[in-house]
């Protein structure tokens, strides 16, 4: 155990979810007789779920600010239809149609953000209305008929990277290149991390770093091989590439920018954030607008994969995205959740879907199992918090020193979740003082 800790550093727990995902894949592979870990299955898994994972990126930000967006499926469908119609009926070039779709997404987001941030209608209501409005508009605009889209969209939604270079590598060289870049980046960031820790006076044995590097490079290498060695002409799918780029952008945005800090501040304690100079209205507005922008990207990828925009595109996507975010460790009360965690949560759902299908489990039973997994994941999280430990994925964000050996006061567990706090019966501080209500609440 001590050695494990040295390998994974203080963030042992942040790998738990990732390890669970790998375990799930391995188990399904064994049970399905090797049909899980095949190139075509993984290529399908990524291009068939990229749109939900993209929605999860935006959704985790919405949930971190303490809101929810029920309209993303309808918005994705709406944008897909606007794009398809602008090309098919009004003769837009494909790129102009796509641009129009993205702009439509931003405008829709501004609309939702306006009602939430400026008027103060809770996000649940605002987006429930949005869900109806935009679904209605899709059906209205399309007259309930599917509209085909040009080939270029198929490239975005289901295409593959080009083939080039020598054939002796035995795999798609574009994928290989991506894998090498990924591995190199990881090695570099690991070296950086090590240097920073040493600078702060912490001891990091060299062998631990090496084991980490070897383990993760092996995983990256295997995944590269898996995606790159499929039938000729296939590679790591284009929607996957778009997803990876978005994940990197949004991971940096949420963790390394002022805006990102503001999101967590507003979600953790809105009043305190406002008194620290955070423009809470603006934060709400931008997060909602961003959500619809990402829904627009998801909608465009989907019509590419489906080769047409249909009136029921995007139905129930919001629920998949929300489930992914909560499996990924976000807190319903806001303030906690990460982009990476949500992607892992989304992948768990995707692997479950795919694995159960390979095992011949029907869609009905799959639904039941997915529901139970969602409950179990969140229950585990809640239980952990009540025990005074923070959530698995919460660690990703909070980056606590060493897994919970703080001089923890017993009073802290409740205040983190807000659940264990009892009414004031007998609380000395509350009752012994003749309290006046707080000015902010009066």
């Amino acid at each position, binding site marked *: 155990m001590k050695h494990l800790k040295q390998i994974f550093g203080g963030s042992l727990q942040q790998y738990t979810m990732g390890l669970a995902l790998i375990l799930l894949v391995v188990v399904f592979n064994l049970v399905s007789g090797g049909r899980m870990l095949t190139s075509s299955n993984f290529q399908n898994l990524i291009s068939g779920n990229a749109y939900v994972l993209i929605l999860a990126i935006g959704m985790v930000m919405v949930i971190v600010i303490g809101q929810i967006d029920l309209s993303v499926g309808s918005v994705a469908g709406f944008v897909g239809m606007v794009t398809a119609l602008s090309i098919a009926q009004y003769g837009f070039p494909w790129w102009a149609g796509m641009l129009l779709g993205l702009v439509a997404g931003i405008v829709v987001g501004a609309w939702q953000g306006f009602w939430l941030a400026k008027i103060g209608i809770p996000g649940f209501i605002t987006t429930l209305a949005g869900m109806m409005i935009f679904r209605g508009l899709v059906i209205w605009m399309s007259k309930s008929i599917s509209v085909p889209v040009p080939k270029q969209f198929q490239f975005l939604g289901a295409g593959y990277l080009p083939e080039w270079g020598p054939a002796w590598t035995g795999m798609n060289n574009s994928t290989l290149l991506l894998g090498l870049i990924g591995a190199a980046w990881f090695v570099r960031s690991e070296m950086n991390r090590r240097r920073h820790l040493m600078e702060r006076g912490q001891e990091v044995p060299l062998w631990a770093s090496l084991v980490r590097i070897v383990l993760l490079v092996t995983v990256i290498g295997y995944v590269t091989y898996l995606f790159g060695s499929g039938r000729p002409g296939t590679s790591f799918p284009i929607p996957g590439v778009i997803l990876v780029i978005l994940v990197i952008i949004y991971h940096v945005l949420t963790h390394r920018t002022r805006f990102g800090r503001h999101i967590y501040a507003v979600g953790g304690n809105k009043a305190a954030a406002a008194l620290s100079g955070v*423009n809470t209205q603006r934060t709400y507005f931008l997060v909602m607008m961003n959500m619809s922008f990402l829904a627009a990207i998801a909608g465009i990828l989907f019509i590419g994969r489906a080769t047409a925009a249909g009136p029921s595109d995007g139905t129930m996507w919001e629920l998949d995205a929300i489930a992914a975010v909560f499996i990924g460790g976000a807190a319903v009360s806001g303030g906690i959740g990460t982009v990476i965690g949500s992607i892992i949560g989304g992948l768990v759902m995707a692997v479950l879907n795919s694995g159960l299908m390979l095992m011949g489990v029907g869609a009905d039973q799959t639904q039941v199992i997915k529901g139970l997994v969602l409950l179990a994941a969140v229950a585990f999280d809640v239980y952990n918090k009540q025990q005074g430990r923070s959530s698995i994925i919460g660690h990703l964000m909070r980056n606590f020193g060493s897994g919970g050996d703080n001089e923890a006061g017993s009073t802290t567990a409740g205040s983190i979740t807000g659940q264990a706090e009892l009414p004031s019966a007998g609380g*000395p501080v509350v009752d012994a003082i003749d309290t006046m209500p707080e000015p902010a609440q009066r």
Partner: protein
Amino acid sequence: MTASHVLLEMRRITKEFPGVRALDEVTMQVRRGDIHAICGENGAGKSTLMKVLSGVYPHGTYEGQIMFEGSEMNFSTIKSSEEKGIVIIHQELALIPELSVAENIFLGSEIMRGRLIDWEASRLRAMDLLARVGLDIDPDTAIKSLGVGQQQLVEIAKALSKDVKLLILDEPTSALNEDDSANLLDLMRGLKAKGITCIMISHKLNEIAAVSDAVTVIRDGRTVETYEVVAGHVDEDRIIRAMVGRSIENRYPSREPHIGDELMEVRGWNVEHPSIPGRLIVNDAHFTLRRGEVVGFAGLMGAGRTELARSIFGRSYGTWLSGQLILDGEEIAPKNVEQAIAAGIAYVTEDRKTLGLNLIDSIKKTIVSANLRDIVTRGLLQPRKENKVAEKYRKELRIKAPSVDVGVSTLSGGNQQKVVLAKWMYPAPKVLILDEPTRGIDVGAKYEIYKLIHSLANDGKAVMVISSELPELLGICDRIYTICEGRITGELAASDADQETLMRRMTTTSATAPAAPALIA
């Protein structure tokens, strides 16, 4: 006084919370038909005593006896005390805004016909009760459309519906304007004439002088004294002495002040209550802060201290009406917190947990949170700089934590407060407003915070300290302003001030003629 004249007697009431003895053998008698005032500083134990009396803290959770109408009472719930005719009206009104006046009055004791509510009888009885409190409104009016003063009267009507013998009013006028307050005091006299006994908790000496027949002063959970009030005259000095009556020990660090020129000036500052139009929370405030000076603001809770501070801090409270803010010789008008911080003002809130901290953040994220710009290079936060800054403050302020990555929720109150202070020192403000900076922290940590306040002042900053603890203000400040009901009622050099003078000015709006309460109609 003879036994038959005594309606209520509380004998040697002791109430303990874990680690705190809130009431220590409190004894008091209330005569039938009196208006009996209870005075004391914030936290003296007045509300706790009333909660014991009304059954909020059930029999068995305290020691001592409650004798009511000659027999011992063992209340287990509020309901059981109400059945005996003891009704408490809390500071925060307990009416439901969406329901009508009649529905609120009979909530929990609905007038029934069979298994259904008899609305007609309810309305008639409500009209009768409303007439008794002098309120001429339709019983079907929704509570939310009434003003606070009228709501207060509805509460009293509700109490009357329960055949009240002893009515307890906890700071009944704290949310009322002057007219409504006068009206309420009149009503209390009227109830008294009808034989209803009242206990009134109040900070306002002029109100006590106007209506009460007897006064009990409580300090630090003990009864200090009870005495009669003759013909509407109260010896205010005696009450004030009894309320504060403790000496300043050597709990404050010494300092050689180096006071410079004027740094900030506030002129003609008026702020309106955010939801009650016309109610001035800050009334024509004028004050100055000098470089290197620690300036105290003394006032009872609800006097408008916090509201004044927050309205200066980017208008983060209430509706700003008028006034000038001059900082470093230039007039500024920060309209939001961001601008206030940029102008060089910092505000440390009195309520650490709900307004000051994001409890799920780590120490380092909290420390940099008011000055993120400083750790941003080319749009990206620099974790190494963040660490460096946080470590620097951890060492300087001696924050006791294993590392700056630890969550703030795991820290003690004193260390949390140091983290919050670090957060506001980091933007390098010119003016620091500290609202109850030592609330809820132990004596040792207090001393460290006092030293920190002094060192901030010695660095040439102006420090404004708001506190309910008068000894604290006298111990650490150079100059003290007093606030009462939104007005600044006095300005004293700390060396000239004592607790009695401060308390007098904190409880009277007319500083020039303190012995003549202006409120009595």
